[in-house]
């Protein structure tokens, strides 16, 4: 029987929405207060959903301890208490939560004990983003989109 397991993780990070493809005025116009040169931060909540057959011996889709240690190593150790803009994955794309959600999806695609179905990221309690894989827009000429 196929079931789905969802786990939530939290990390805190700073960022600034800015692209070199726009001039200063346009950055301010598009990104508003998120373009503050000094940055700002959020407590992010990440919810990953994994699907798979329930192992009759363990009753599990995957072992939670394995998922937690994967998340600790590849998600939390990488993002928690960092400035997202300084990370390699945001070198050429804006550190929006859309782009962050896609990056987190790519991370958990490498967790091999179960199939990644869905990533949901809450930037604040009012803003959340979902990605379930599939087509992304073709790379754009400007660096501000993925």
């Amino acid at each position: 029987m196929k079931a789905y397991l969802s786990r939530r993780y939290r990390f805190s990070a700073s960022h600034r929405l800015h692209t070199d493809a726009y001039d200063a005025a346009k950055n301010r116009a598009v990104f508003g207060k998120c373009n503050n040169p000094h940055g700002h931060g959020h407590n992010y909540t990440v919810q990953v959903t994994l699907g798979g057959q329930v192992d009759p011996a363990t009753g599990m889709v995957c072992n939670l301890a394995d998922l937690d240690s994967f998340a600790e190593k590849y998600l939390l150790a990488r993002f928690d208490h960092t400035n997202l803009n300084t990370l390699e994955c945001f070198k050429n794309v804006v550190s929006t939560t859309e782009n962050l959600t896609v990056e987190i999806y790519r991370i958990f695609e490498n967790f091999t004990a179960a199939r990644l179905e869905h990533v949901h990221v809450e930037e604040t309690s009012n803003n959340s983003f979902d990605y379930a894989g599939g087509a992304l827009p073709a790379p754009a000429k400007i660096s501000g989109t993925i």
Partner: protein
Amino acid sequence: MIFLTRKAEFSSAHYYWNDAWSPEENERVFGKCANRNGHGHNYTLEVTVAGEIDRTSGFVVDLKELKDILEREVVGVYDHRHLNLEVPEFRNAVPTTENIAIAIWRRLDGRIPNAKLHRVRIYEMPDLFADYYGEP
């Protein structure tokens, strides 16, 4: 088709153990969940049903009736019980969150008048939940 979700809560004890394995293997795989003295959780159940809106009542299902079904089939059986020792479906299955979702599906499927069971979601904790949609 419209979807309706009803929540219910229950508190239960359990442990993770497979009798086919040695104690060492159980402890290696299940960690602290293998403590045979058990531990417990406040579970939150979300049952989603799908159906058509009755033109007269405006309901998909009568929420009171759904509440009573959840109480009779699930909460009354699981609440303040030890799942391994007192709930028959976990005599031979580990009461993981995934298996609880499947077990609750089996308890409810076909028992909700005028609606089709769509999803059983069970939270073991706010940060951990399992979904079952009746898939084989």
